Protein backbone atom coordinates (compact mmCIF):
# COMPACT_ATOMS: atom_id res chain seq x y z
CA UNK A 1 0.00 0.00 0.00
CA UNK A 2 2.87 2.34 0.78
CA UNK A 3 3.79 2.70 -2.88
CA UNK A 4 0.55 4.51 -3.55
CA UNK A 5 0.64 8.30 -3.28
CA UNK A 6 -0.77 9.54 0.00
CA UNK A 7 -2.30 12.68 -1.42
CA UNK A 8 -5.10 14.67 0.04
CA UNK A 9 -8.67 13.50 -0.25
CA UNK A 10 -10.44 15.14 -3.15
CA UNK A 11 -14.20 15.44 -3.31
CA UNK A 12 -15.84 12.98 -5.65
CA UNK A 13 -16.84 14.74 -8.84
CA UNK A 14 -20.52 13.96 -9.19
CA UNK A 15 -20.57 15.37 -12.71
CA UNK A 16 -18.38 12.59 -13.99
CA UNK A 17 -20.00 10.24 -16.48
CA UNK A 18 -21.21 6.91 -15.07
CA UNK A 19 -19.10 3.84 -15.36
CA UNK A 20 -15.57 3.31 -14.23
CA UNK A 21 -14.53 6.90 -13.69
CA UNK A 22 -15.33 6.95 -10.01
CA UNK A 23 -13.53 3.71 -9.43
CA UNK A 24 -10.58 4.93 -11.49
CA UNK A 25 -10.34 7.96 -9.23
CA UNK A 26 -10.48 5.80 -6.14
CA UNK A 27 -7.85 3.42 -7.42
CA UNK A 28 -5.37 6.26 -7.40
CA UNK A 29 -6.09 7.14 -3.80
CA UNK A 30 -4.43 5.74 -0.73
CA UNK A 31 -6.23 3.56 1.74
CA UNK A 32 -5.84 6.08 4.53
CA UNK A 33 -7.71 8.46 2.27
CA UNK A 34 -10.40 5.82 1.85
CA UNK A 35 -10.63 5.64 5.61
CA UNK A 36 -11.09 9.41 5.74
CA UNK A 37 -13.84 9.16 3.13
CA UNK A 38 -15.57 6.44 5.08
CA UNK A 39 -15.21 8.38 8.30
CA UNK A 40 -13.47 5.48 9.98
CA UNK A 41 -10.24 3.57 9.94
CA UNK A 42 -10.03 0.37 7.96
CA UNK A 43 -8.76 -2.40 10.21
CA UNK A 44 -6.76 -5.07 8.39
CA UNK A 45 -6.29 -2.72 5.47
CA UNK A 46 -3.12 -4.64 4.72
CA UNK A 47 -5.45 -7.43 3.56
CA UNK A 48 -6.61 -5.33 0.65
CA UNK A 49 -4.48 -6.11 -2.40
CA UNK A 50 -2.90 -3.21 -4.24
CA UNK A 51 -5.34 -1.66 -6.67
CA UNK A 52 -8.33 -3.08 -4.86
CA UNK A 53 -10.60 -0.60 -3.19
CA UNK A 54 -13.06 -1.18 -0.38
CA UNK A 55 -16.45 -2.21 -1.66
CA UNK A 56 -18.10 0.36 0.57
CA UNK A 57 -16.58 3.07 -1.60
CA UNK A 58 -16.41 1.36 -4.93
CA UNK A 59 -20.01 0.80 -5.72
CA UNK A 60 -23.51 1.04 -4.44
CA UNK A 61 -24.55 -2.56 -3.83
CA UNK A 62 -28.09 -1.88 -5.01
CA UNK A 63 -29.56 -2.71 -1.60
CA UNK A 64 -31.91 0.27 -1.76
CA UNK A 65 -33.53 -1.28 -4.82
CA UNK A 66 -34.83 -4.11 -2.64
CA UNK A 67 -37.47 -1.72 -1.30
CA UNK A 68 -39.25 -2.31 -4.62
CA UNK A 69 -39.56 -6.02 -3.84
CA UNK A 70 -42.20 -7.42 -1.52
CA UNK A 71 -41.94 -10.47 0.70
CA UNK A 72 -38.64 -11.79 -0.62
CA UNK A 73 -36.18 -13.57 1.67
CA UNK A 74 -32.79 -11.87 1.49
CA UNK A 75 -30.01 -14.45 1.51
CA UNK A 76 -27.16 -11.98 1.15
CA UNK A 77 -26.87 -8.21 1.03
CA UNK A 78 -23.49 -7.96 -0.70
CA UNK A 79 -23.76 -9.35 -3.29
CA UNK A 80 -27.54 -9.08 -3.32
CA UNK A 81 -29.35 -12.39 -3.38
CA UNK A 82 -33.00 -12.92 -2.47
CA UNK A 83 -35.56 -15.63 -3.10
CA UNK A 84 -39.33 -15.58 -3.25
CA UNK A 85 -41.50 -17.70 -0.94
CA UNK A 86 -43.51 -20.22 -3.01
CA UNK A 87 -46.92 -18.74 -2.15
CA UNK A 88 -45.83 -15.38 -3.61
CA UNK A 89 -45.07 -16.99 -6.98
CA UNK A 90 -48.69 -17.72 -7.84
CA UNK A 91 -48.89 -15.25 -10.76
CA UNK A 92 -48.75 -16.74 -14.24
CA UNK A 93 -46.31 -13.96 -15.16
CA UNK A 94 -43.99 -13.11 -12.31
CA UNK A 95 -44.20 -9.38 -11.51
CA UNK A 96 -41.06 -7.37 -10.78
CA UNK A 97 -41.65 -7.20 -7.05
CA UNK A 98 -41.67 -10.99 -6.80
CA UNK A 99 -38.81 -11.83 -9.15
CA UNK A 100 -35.91 -13.39 -7.27
CA UNK A 101 -32.55 -11.61 -7.26
CA UNK A 102 -29.30 -13.39 -7.97
CA UNK A 103 -26.19 -11.27 -8.38
CA UNK A 104 -22.62 -12.50 -8.53
CA UNK A 105 -21.19 -9.01 -8.24
CA UNK A 106 -22.48 -5.49 -7.78
CA UNK A 107 -25.10 -3.69 -9.82
CA UNK A 108 -23.22 -1.56 -12.37
CA UNK A 109 -23.50 2.20 -12.12
CA UNK A 110 -25.09 2.35 -15.58
CA UNK A 111 -27.97 0.22 -14.29
CA UNK A 112 -28.29 2.16 -11.04
CA UNK A 113 -28.51 5.36 -13.10
CA UNK A 114 -30.83 3.75 -15.70
CA UNK A 115 -28.42 5.19 -18.25
CA UNK A 116 -28.24 3.22 -21.51
CA UNK A 117 -26.65 6.02 -23.50
CA UNK A 118 -24.03 4.69 -25.88
CA UNK A 119 -24.69 1.08 -24.92
CA UNK A 120 -23.43 -1.37 -27.50
CA UNK A 121 -23.49 -5.12 -27.83
CA UNK A 122 -20.45 -6.63 -29.50
CA UNK A 123 -20.73 -9.96 -31.29
CA UNK A 124 -17.32 -11.27 -32.29
CA UNK A 125 -15.04 -14.29 -32.36
CA UNK A 126 -15.92 -17.17 -34.68
CA UNK A 127 -18.18 -15.07 -36.92
CA UNK A 128 -17.87 -13.85 -40.51
CA UNK A 129 -18.83 -10.26 -39.64
CA UNK A 130 -18.23 -8.97 -36.12
CA UNK A 131 -21.10 -6.72 -35.05
CA UNK A 132 -21.35 -3.72 -32.80
CA UNK A 133 -25.03 -3.06 -32.17
CA UNK A 134 -26.73 -0.25 -30.30
CA UNK A 135 -30.10 -0.84 -28.67
CA UNK A 136 -31.62 1.04 -31.61
CA UNK A 137 -29.80 -1.25 -34.06
CA UNK A 138 -31.18 -4.31 -32.30
CA UNK A 139 -34.71 -2.94 -32.41
CA UNK A 140 -34.46 -1.83 -36.04
CA UNK A 141 -32.57 -4.71 -37.63
CA UNK A 142 -34.19 -7.75 -36.04
CA UNK A 143 -37.68 -9.02 -35.44
CA UNK A 144 -38.92 -8.10 -31.97
CA UNK A 145 -40.33 -11.02 -30.01
CA UNK A 146 -42.11 -11.19 -26.65
CA UNK A 147 -42.01 -14.44 -24.70
CA UNK A 148 -42.85 -15.69 -21.24
CA UNK A 149 -39.67 -17.45 -20.10
CA UNK A 150 -38.70 -18.85 -16.73
CA UNK A 151 -35.29 -18.21 -15.26
CA UNK A 152 -34.09 -20.45 -12.44
CA UNK A 153 -30.83 -20.34 -10.52
CA UNK A 154 -28.81 -23.53 -11.00
CA UNK A 155 -28.47 -23.70 -7.21
CA UNK A 156 -32.20 -23.48 -6.44
CA UNK A 157 -32.82 -26.18 -3.80
CA UNK A 158 -29.23 -26.16 -2.56
CA UNK A 159 -30.40 -25.80 1.06
CA UNK A 160 -31.70 -29.38 1.07
CA UNK A 161 -28.45 -31.15 0.28
CA UNK A 162 -26.78 -32.98 3.17
CA UNK A 163 -23.96 -32.39 3.77
CA UNK A 164 -24.27 -28.78 2.77
CA UNK A 165 -22.59 -27.21 -0.20
CA UNK A 166 -21.22 -23.72 -0.50
CA UNK A 167 -23.18 -20.83 -1.90
CA UNK A 168 -26.49 -19.15 -1.18
CA UNK A 169 -28.79 -21.61 0.52
CA UNK A 170 -31.71 -21.29 -1.87
CA UNK A 171 -34.77 -23.28 -0.88
CA UNK A 172 -37.49 -23.25 -3.56
CA UNK A 173 -37.79 -19.65 -4.66
CA UNK A 174 -34.85 -18.90 -6.98
CA UNK A 175 -37.26 -19.15 -9.91
CA UNK A 176 -39.45 -16.69 -11.73
CA UNK A 177 -41.24 -16.46 -15.05
CA UNK A 178 -41.61 -12.89 -16.35
CA UNK A 179 -42.44 -11.80 -19.89
CA UNK A 180 -39.38 -10.71 -21.84
CA UNK A 181 -39.16 -8.60 -24.99
CA UNK A 182 -36.17 -8.50 -27.28
CA UNK A 183 -34.73 -10.21 -30.34
CA UNK A 184 -33.82 -13.83 -30.92
CA UNK A 185 -30.22 -14.61 -30.03
CA UNK A 186 -30.18 -16.91 -33.07
CA UNK A 187 -31.14 -14.07 -35.43
CA UNK A 188 -28.26 -11.91 -34.18
CA UNK A 189 -25.77 -14.77 -34.38
CA UNK A 190 -26.91 -15.60 -37.91
CA UNK A 191 -26.54 -11.94 -38.94
CA UNK A 192 -22.94 -12.11 -37.76
CA UNK A 193 -22.48 -15.37 -39.67
CA UNK A 194 -21.44 -18.17 -37.35
CA UNK A 195 -18.36 -19.94 -38.69
CA UNK A 196 -18.23 -23.77 -38.85
CA UNK A 197 -15.58 -23.74 -36.13
CA UNK A 198 -17.92 -22.17 -33.57
CA UNK A 199 -18.34 -24.29 -30.45
CA UNK A 200 -19.70 -22.16 -27.64
CA UNK A 201 -20.86 -18.67 -26.78
CA UNK A 202 -19.13 -16.57 -24.12
CA UNK A 203 -21.21 -13.84 -22.47
CA UNK A 204 -19.96 -10.64 -20.87
CA UNK A 205 -21.62 -7.87 -18.87
CA UNK A 206 -20.49 -4.73 -17.09
CA UNK A 207 -21.42 -5.69 -13.54
CA UNK A 208 -18.75 -4.94 -10.96
CA UNK A 209 -16.57 -7.60 -9.37
CA UNK A 210 -16.98 -7.87 -5.60
CA UNK A 211 -13.33 -7.00 -5.09
CA UNK A 212 -13.90 -3.70 -6.91
CA UNK A 213 -11.20 -4.70 -9.39
CA UNK A 214 -12.35 -3.29 -12.74
CA UNK A 215 -10.12 -5.79 -14.56
CA UNK A 216 -11.96 -8.79 -13.14
CA UNK A 217 -14.99 -10.40 -14.76
CA UNK A 218 -17.80 -11.02 -12.30
CA UNK A 219 -19.25 -13.88 -14.28
CA UNK A 220 -18.91 -14.92 -17.91
CA UNK A 221 -20.74 -18.06 -18.89
CA UNK A 222 -22.06 -19.36 -22.19
CA UNK A 223 -23.99 -22.02 -24.06
CA UNK A 224 -23.15 -24.65 -26.68
CA UNK A 225 -23.57 -23.00 -30.10
CA UNK A 226 -26.35 -25.48 -30.97
CA UNK A 227 -28.36 -24.28 -27.96
CA UNK A 228 -27.67 -20.63 -28.78
CA UNK A 229 -28.92 -21.14 -32.34
CA UNK A 230 -32.27 -22.57 -31.22
CA UNK A 231 -35.16 -20.15 -31.53
CA UNK A 232 -35.93 -19.84 -27.80
CA UNK A 233 -33.14 -17.68 -26.42
CA UNK A 234 -33.56 -13.93 -26.65
CA UNK A 235 -31.54 -10.79 -26.10
CA UNK A 236 -34.01 -8.78 -24.05
CA UNK A 237 -34.37 -5.09 -23.26
CA UNK A 238 -37.75 -5.27 -21.53
CA UNK A 239 -39.24 -7.27 -18.68
CA UNK A 240 -43.02 -7.23 -18.28
CA UNK A 241 -43.25 -4.38 -20.77
CA UNK A 242 -40.81 -2.09 -18.95
CA UNK A 243 -37.10 -1.48 -19.44
CA UNK A 244 -35.27 -4.28 -17.63
CA UNK A 245 -34.89 -3.19 -13.98
CA UNK A 246 -31.43 -2.54 -12.52
CA UNK A 247 -31.44 -5.75 -10.48
CA UNK A 248 -32.31 -7.83 -13.51
CA UNK A 249 -29.82 -6.61 -16.11
CA UNK A 250 -30.57 -3.10 -17.37
CA UNK A 251 -30.40 -2.27 -20.22
CA UNK A 252 -29.80 -5.57 -22.01
CA UNK A 253 -29.60 -9.19 -20.99
CA UNK A 254 -29.76 -12.67 -22.34
CA UNK A 255 -32.53 -15.07 -21.48
CA UNK A 256 -31.41 -18.58 -22.41
CA UNK A 257 -34.28 -20.72 -21.17
CA UNK A 258 -33.81 -24.26 -19.94
CA UNK A 259 -30.26 -23.72 -18.75
CA UNK A 260 -29.06 -22.47 -15.35
CA UNK A 261 -29.91 -18.80 -14.91
CA UNK A 262 -26.23 -17.87 -14.93
CA UNK A 263 -26.14 -18.50 -18.69
CA UNK A 264 -28.66 -15.65 -19.08
CA UNK A 265 -26.04 -12.89 -18.71
CA UNK A 266 -27.24 -9.59 -17.27
CA UNK A 267 -25.92 -6.15 -18.29
CA UNK A 268 -24.91 -7.76 -21.60
CA UNK A 269 -22.10 -6.04 -23.51
CA UNK A 270 -20.52 -8.81 -25.55
CA UNK A 271 -21.16 -12.23 -27.01
CA UNK A 272 -17.87 -13.84 -27.91
CA UNK A 273 -18.41 -16.82 -30.21
CA UNK A 274 -15.73 -19.28 -29.19
CA UNK A 275 -13.86 -21.99 -31.13
CA UNK A 276 -13.71 -23.99 -27.91
CA UNK A 277 -15.85 -24.52 -24.82
CA UNK A 278 -16.01 -21.13 -23.14
CA UNK A 279 -13.62 -20.81 -20.20
CA UNK A 280 -14.83 -17.52 -18.71
CA UNK A 281 -15.37 -16.76 -15.04
CA UNK A 282 -17.51 -19.45 -13.35
CA UNK A 283 -17.36 -21.79 -16.37
CA UNK A 284 -14.50 -23.82 -14.87
CA UNK A 285 -13.58 -25.60 -11.65
CA UNK A 286 -16.64 -26.51 -9.60
CA UNK A 287 -18.80 -23.58 -10.69
CA UNK A 288 -22.05 -24.69 -12.37
CA UNK A 289 -20.58 -28.16 -12.81
CA UNK A 290 -21.74 -31.60 -11.75
CA UNK A 291 -19.79 -34.82 -11.17
CA UNK A 292 -19.49 -36.93 -14.33
CA UNK A 293 -20.68 -39.95 -12.31
CA UNK A 294 -22.96 -40.43 -9.29
CA UNK A 295 -21.20 -39.87 -5.97
CA UNK A 296 -22.07 -40.49 -2.34
CA UNK A 297 -23.05 -37.34 -0.41
CA UNK A 298 -19.96 -35.48 0.74
CA UNK A 299 -17.59 -37.03 -1.82
CA UNK A 300 -14.74 -34.81 -2.95
CA UNK A 301 -14.77 -35.08 -6.74
CA UNK A 302 -11.55 -34.29 -8.67
CA UNK A 303 -11.90 -31.11 -10.69
CA UNK A 304 -11.24 -32.93 -13.97
CA UNK A 305 -14.27 -35.14 -13.30
CA UNK A 306 -16.67 -32.19 -13.15
CA UNK A 307 -18.82 -31.50 -16.23
CA UNK A 308 -20.76 -28.38 -17.17
CA UNK A 309 -24.37 -28.30 -15.99
CA UNK A 310 -26.68 -27.65 -18.95
CA UNK A 311 -30.36 -28.69 -19.06
CA UNK A 312 -32.26 -27.96 -15.84
CA UNK A 313 -34.33 -30.86 -14.44
CA UNK A 314 -38.14 -31.09 -14.39
CA UNK A 315 -39.66 -29.27 -11.42
CA UNK A 316 -42.83 -27.88 -9.91
CA UNK A 317 -44.00 -25.53 -7.18
CA UNK A 318 -47.17 -25.39 -5.08
CA UNK A 319 -48.02 -21.69 -5.08
CA UNK A 320 -51.50 -21.93 -3.53
CA UNK A 321 -52.44 -22.24 -0.74
CA UNK A 322 -49.61 -21.03 1.48
CA UNK A 323 -48.04 -23.74 3.60
CA UNK A 324 -49.76 -24.12 6.98
CA UNK A 325 -53.16 -22.95 5.74
CA UNK A 326 -56.25 -24.32 7.48
CA UNK A 327 -58.84 -25.87 5.15
CA UNK A 328 -62.14 -27.66 5.79
CA UNK A 329 -62.05 -31.46 5.97
CA UNK A 330 -64.34 -33.49 3.75
CA UNK A 331 -64.62 -30.79 1.10
CA UNK A 332 -62.68 -30.07 -2.06
CA UNK A 333 -59.74 -27.68 -1.69
CA UNK A 334 -58.01 -26.23 -4.73
CA UNK A 335 -54.24 -26.54 -4.83
CA UNK A 336 -52.28 -25.09 -7.73
CA UNK A 337 -48.86 -24.08 -8.92
CA UNK A 338 -46.47 -24.14 -11.85
CA UNK A 339 -44.33 -26.80 -13.51
CA UNK A 340 -41.37 -26.41 -15.82
CA UNK A 341 -38.54 -28.39 -17.40
CA UNK A 342 -35.19 -27.56 -18.96
CA UNK A 343 -36.14 -29.65 -21.97
CA UNK A 344 -39.05 -27.30 -22.61
CA UNK A 345 -42.00 -29.52 -21.86
CA UNK A 346 -43.81 -30.98 -18.87
CA UNK A 347 -46.03 -33.97 -19.59
CA UNK A 348 -47.92 -34.31 -16.31
CA UNK A 349 -48.22 -33.14 -12.72
CA UNK A 350 -49.51 -35.33 -9.90
CA UNK A 351 -50.30 -34.44 -6.31
CA UNK A 352 -50.42 -36.55 -3.15
CA UNK A 353 -51.98 -35.77 0.22
CA UNK A 354 -50.81 -38.99 1.92
CA UNK A 355 -47.03 -38.58 1.84
CA UNK A 356 -46.66 -40.08 -1.60
CA UNK A 357 -48.67 -43.28 -0.95
CA UNK A 358 -51.23 -42.41 -3.63
CA UNK A 359 -51.21 -39.77 -6.36
CA UNK A 360 -53.88 -38.00 -8.36
CA UNK A 361 -53.27 -36.29 -11.69
CA UNK A 362 -53.58 -32.53 -11.76
CA UNK A 363 -54.99 -30.47 -14.61
CA UNK A 364 -52.00 -29.14 -16.57
CA UNK A 365 -52.31 -26.22 -18.98
CA UNK A 366 -50.23 -25.80 -22.12
CA UNK A 367 -47.62 -23.04 -21.87
CA UNK A 368 -48.19 -19.79 -23.82
CA UNK A 369 -44.84 -20.50 -25.48
CA UNK A 370 -42.05 -23.03 -25.11
CA UNK A 371 -40.13 -22.54 -21.83
CA UNK A 372 -42.93 -20.68 -20.08
CA UNK A 373 -43.85 -22.43 -16.88
CA UNK A 374 -47.14 -24.29 -17.00
CA UNK A 375 -50.09 -23.79 -14.65
CA UNK A 376 -51.42 -26.87 -12.90
CA UNK A 377 -54.29 -27.24 -10.46
CA UNK A 378 -56.07 -30.01 -8.60
CA UNK A 379 -58.88 -30.39 -6.09
CA UNK A 380 -57.91 -32.40 -3.04
CA UNK A 381 -60.25 -33.60 -0.31
CA UNK A 382 -58.76 -34.18 3.12
CA UNK A 383 -60.83 -36.93 4.79
CA UNK A 384 -60.69 -35.90 8.46
CA UNK A 385 -59.34 -33.15 10.68
CA UNK A 386 -55.60 -33.21 11.18
CA UNK A 387 -52.23 -32.59 9.60
CA UNK A 388 -51.60 -33.21 5.92
CA UNK A 389 -48.94 -32.42 3.40
CA UNK A 390 -49.53 -31.77 -0.28
CA UNK A 391 -46.71 -33.05 -2.43
CA UNK A 392 -46.41 -32.13 -6.11
CA UNK A 393 -44.54 -34.12 -8.72
CA UNK A 394 -43.97 -33.06 -12.32
CA UNK A 395 -43.03 -35.53 -15.05
CA UNK A 396 -41.31 -34.63 -18.30
CA UNK A 397 -42.06 -35.99 -21.78
CA UNK A 398 -39.50 -38.76 -21.29
CA UNK A 399 -41.28 -40.04 -18.19
CA UNK A 400 -38.70 -38.60 -15.82
CA UNK A 401 -40.22 -37.31 -12.57
CA UNK A 402 -39.15 -35.28 -9.59
CA UNK A 403 -37.78 -37.41 -6.74
CA UNK A 404 -39.22 -37.14 -3.20
CA UNK A 405 -35.73 -36.63 -1.73
CA UNK A 406 -32.72 -34.59 -2.82
CA UNK A 407 -31.20 -36.26 -5.87
CA UNK A 408 -27.57 -36.55 -6.93
CA UNK A 409 -25.51 -34.80 -4.26
CA UNK A 410 -22.80 -32.66 -5.85
CA UNK A 411 -20.05 -30.50 -4.35
CA UNK A 412 -21.67 -27.15 -5.15
CA UNK A 413 -25.30 -28.11 -4.69
CA UNK A 414 -26.85 -27.71 -8.14
CA UNK A 415 -29.95 -29.14 -9.77
CA UNK A 416 -31.96 -30.14 -6.69
CA UNK A 417 -35.44 -30.81 -8.06
CA UNK A 418 -36.95 -32.67 -5.12
CA UNK A 419 -40.71 -32.50 -4.85
CA UNK A 420 -42.12 -29.38 -3.26
CA UNK A 421 -44.48 -29.93 -0.38
CA UNK A 422 -46.65 -27.80 1.80
CA UNK A 423 -48.51 -28.40 5.05
CA UNK A 424 -52.31 -28.18 5.21
CA UNK A 425 -54.35 -28.44 8.39
CA UNK A 426 -57.85 -29.79 7.92
CA UNK A 427 -60.41 -28.57 10.44
Amino acid at each position, binding site marked *: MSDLPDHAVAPIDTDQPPGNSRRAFLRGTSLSAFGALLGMTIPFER*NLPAGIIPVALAQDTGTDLMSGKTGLTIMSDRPLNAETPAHLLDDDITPYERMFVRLNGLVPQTALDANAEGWTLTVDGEVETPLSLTLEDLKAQFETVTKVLWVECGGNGRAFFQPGS*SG*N*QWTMGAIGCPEWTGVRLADVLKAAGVKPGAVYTGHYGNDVHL*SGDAEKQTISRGAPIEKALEEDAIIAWAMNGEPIPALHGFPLRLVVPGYPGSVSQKYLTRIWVRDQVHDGEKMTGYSYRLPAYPVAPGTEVPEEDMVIMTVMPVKSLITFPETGTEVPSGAATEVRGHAWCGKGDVAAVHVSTDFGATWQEAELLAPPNRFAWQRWRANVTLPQAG*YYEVWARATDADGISQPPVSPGWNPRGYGNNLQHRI*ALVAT
Partner: protein
Amino acid sequence: MHQIQLKLALGLAALLGSAALAVAQSGPDPMRALRNEVQISAADPMAALRAPAATETEGPAPNPEFGNLPDAPGAEETYYQCTACHSTAIILQQRVTDARWDDLWQWMVEKQGMFDPEPAEKEVIMTYLKTHFSSER
Protein backbone atom coordinates in the same frame (compact mmCIF):
# COMPACT_ATOMS: atom_id res chain seq x y z
CA MET B 1 -58.29 -43.45 16.05
CA HIS B 2 -59.91 -40.92 18.36
CA GLN B 3 -60.19 -43.55 21.07
CA ILE B 4 -56.51 -44.37 20.83
CA GLN B 5 -55.59 -40.71 21.13
CA LEU B 6 -57.91 -40.32 24.12
CA LYS B 7 -56.41 -43.34 25.87
CA LEU B 8 -52.92 -42.00 25.25
CA ALA B 9 -53.87 -38.59 26.55
CA LEU B 10 -55.49 -40.01 29.64
CA GLY B 11 -52.52 -42.28 30.22
CA LEU B 12 -50.15 -39.34 29.98
CA ALA B 13 -52.39 -37.30 32.24
CA ALA B 14 -52.31 -40.02 34.87
CA LEU B 15 -48.54 -40.19 34.64
CA LEU B 16 -47.80 -36.49 34.60
CA GLY B 17 -50.57 -35.02 36.70
CA SER B 18 -52.79 -32.02 36.25
CA ALA B 19 -50.51 -29.99 33.93
CA ALA B 20 -50.63 -32.75 31.32
CA LEU B 21 -54.36 -33.09 31.85
CA ALA B 22 -54.87 -29.48 30.83
CA VAL B 23 -52.97 -30.14 27.60
CA ALA B 24 -54.93 -33.30 26.93
CA GLN B 25 -58.22 -31.49 27.36
CA SER B 26 -57.34 -28.93 24.72
CA GLY B 27 -56.95 -31.74 22.18
CA PRO B 28 -54.08 -32.58 19.86
CA ASP B 29 -52.69 -29.65 17.88
CA PRO B 30 -51.59 -30.93 14.47
CA MET B 31 -49.58 -27.78 13.85
CA ARG B 32 -47.66 -27.95 17.10
CA ALA B 33 -44.41 -28.97 15.40
CA LEU B 34 -44.67 -26.20 12.83
CA ARG B 35 -45.25 -23.60 15.54
CA ASN B 36 -42.16 -24.73 17.38
CA GLU B 37 -39.76 -25.16 14.50
CA VAL B 38 -36.51 -25.14 16.43
CA GLN B 39 -37.36 -28.52 17.96
CA ILE B 40 -37.33 -30.21 14.55
CA SER B 41 -33.89 -31.51 13.65
CA ALA B 42 -32.38 -30.83 10.26
CA ALA B 43 -32.64 -34.54 9.50
CA ASP B 44 -36.42 -34.42 9.79
CA PRO B 45 -38.13 -34.45 6.39
CA MET B 46 -40.17 -31.44 7.50
CA ALA B 47 -36.99 -29.42 7.27
CA ALA B 48 -37.83 -29.19 3.57
CA LEU B 49 -40.45 -26.61 4.41
CA ARG B 50 -38.00 -23.92 5.42
CA ALA B 51 -34.40 -22.82 5.17
CA PRO B 52 -32.26 -24.88 7.55
CA ALA B 53 -29.91 -22.02 8.40
CA ALA B 54 -32.76 -19.97 9.80
CA THR B 55 -33.36 -22.44 12.60
CA GLU B 56 -29.79 -22.82 13.82
CA THR B 57 -29.65 -22.01 17.49
CA GLU B 58 -26.50 -23.74 18.72
CA GLY B 59 -23.06 -22.23 19.11
CA PRO B 60 -21.75 -18.86 20.27
CA ALA B 61 -23.99 -15.82 20.15
CA PRO B 62 -23.72 -13.57 17.09
CA ASN B 63 -21.47 -10.55 17.49
CA PRO B 64 -23.02 -7.47 15.80
CA GLU B 65 -19.62 -5.78 15.72
CA PHE B 66 -18.42 -8.46 13.31
CA GLY B 67 -21.45 -8.80 11.06
CA ASN B 68 -23.18 -11.24 13.44
CA LEU B 69 -20.46 -13.85 13.09
CA PRO B 70 -20.47 -16.23 16.09
CA ASP B 71 -18.52 -14.59 18.90
CA ALA B 72 -15.50 -16.86 19.18
CA PRO B 73 -11.73 -16.71 18.58
CA GLY B 74 -11.11 -15.89 14.92
CA ALA B 75 -14.31 -13.90 14.40
CA GLU B 76 -12.49 -10.56 14.05
CA GLU B 77 -9.86 -11.87 11.65
CA THR B 78 -12.53 -13.64 9.60
CA TYR B 79 -14.69 -10.53 9.48
CA TYR B 80 -11.99 -8.27 8.09
CA GLN B 81 -10.59 -10.88 5.71
CA CYS B 82 -13.94 -11.71 4.13
CA THR B 83 -15.83 -8.43 4.14
CA ALA B 84 -13.24 -6.81 1.89
CA CYS B 85 -15.39 -8.35 -0.85
CA HIS B 86 -18.70 -9.68 0.49
CA SER B 87 -20.88 -9.32 3.55
CA THR B 88 -21.05 -11.94 6.30
CA ALA B 89 -24.51 -12.99 5.10
CA ILE B 90 -23.04 -15.56 2.74
CA ILE B 91 -20.72 -16.95 5.44
CA LEU B 92 -23.58 -17.34 7.89
CA GLN B 93 -25.40 -19.61 5.41
CA GLN B 94 -22.62 -22.16 5.01
CA ARG B 95 -22.55 -25.74 6.35
CA VAL B 96 -19.82 -27.40 4.32
CA THR B 97 -17.02 -29.91 4.66
CA ASP B 98 -13.45 -28.99 5.54
CA ALA B 99 -12.39 -29.96 2.03
CA ARG B 100 -14.96 -27.52 0.57
CA TRP B 101 -13.59 -24.73 2.77
CA ASP B 102 -10.07 -25.48 1.53
CA ASP B 103 -11.30 -25.41 -2.05
CA LEU B 104 -13.27 -22.19 -1.51
CA TRP B 105 -10.22 -20.47 -0.02
CA GLN B 106 -8.06 -21.49 -2.96
CA TRP B 107 -10.75 -20.37 -5.40
CA MET B 108 -11.11 -16.98 -3.77
CA VAL B 109 -7.35 -16.39 -3.78
CA GLU B 110 -6.69 -17.65 -7.31
CA LYS B 111 -9.84 -16.57 -9.13
CA GLN B 112 -11.45 -13.82 -7.07
CA GLY B 113 -8.42 -11.75 -6.14
CA MET B 114 -8.64 -12.35 -2.40
CA PHE B 115 -5.64 -11.29 -0.35
CA ASP B 116 -3.77 -14.36 0.91
CA PRO B 117 -2.67 -13.55 4.45
CA GLU B 118 0.26 -14.95 6.41
CA PRO B 119 -0.10 -18.71 7.08
CA ALA B 120 -0.73 -18.15 10.79
CA GLU B 121 -3.60 -15.77 10.09
CA LYS B 122 -5.03 -18.04 7.42
CA GLU B 123 -4.95 -20.85 9.97
CA VAL B 124 -6.94 -18.77 12.47
CA ILE B 125 -9.57 -17.91 9.86
CA MET B 126 -9.87 -21.39 8.39
CA THR B 127 -10.13 -22.95 11.83
CA TYR B 128 -12.87 -20.49 12.67
CA LEU B 129 -14.79 -21.20 9.45
CA LYS B 130 -14.39 -24.97 9.76
CA THR B 131 -15.52 -24.83 13.39
CA HIS B 132 -18.62 -22.70 13.04
CA PHE B 133 -19.79 -23.27 9.46
CA SER B 134 -19.27 -26.97 9.05
CA SER B 135 -21.27 -29.97 7.99
CA GLU B 136 -18.75 -32.15 9.83
CA ARG B 137 -19.08 -30.91 13.38
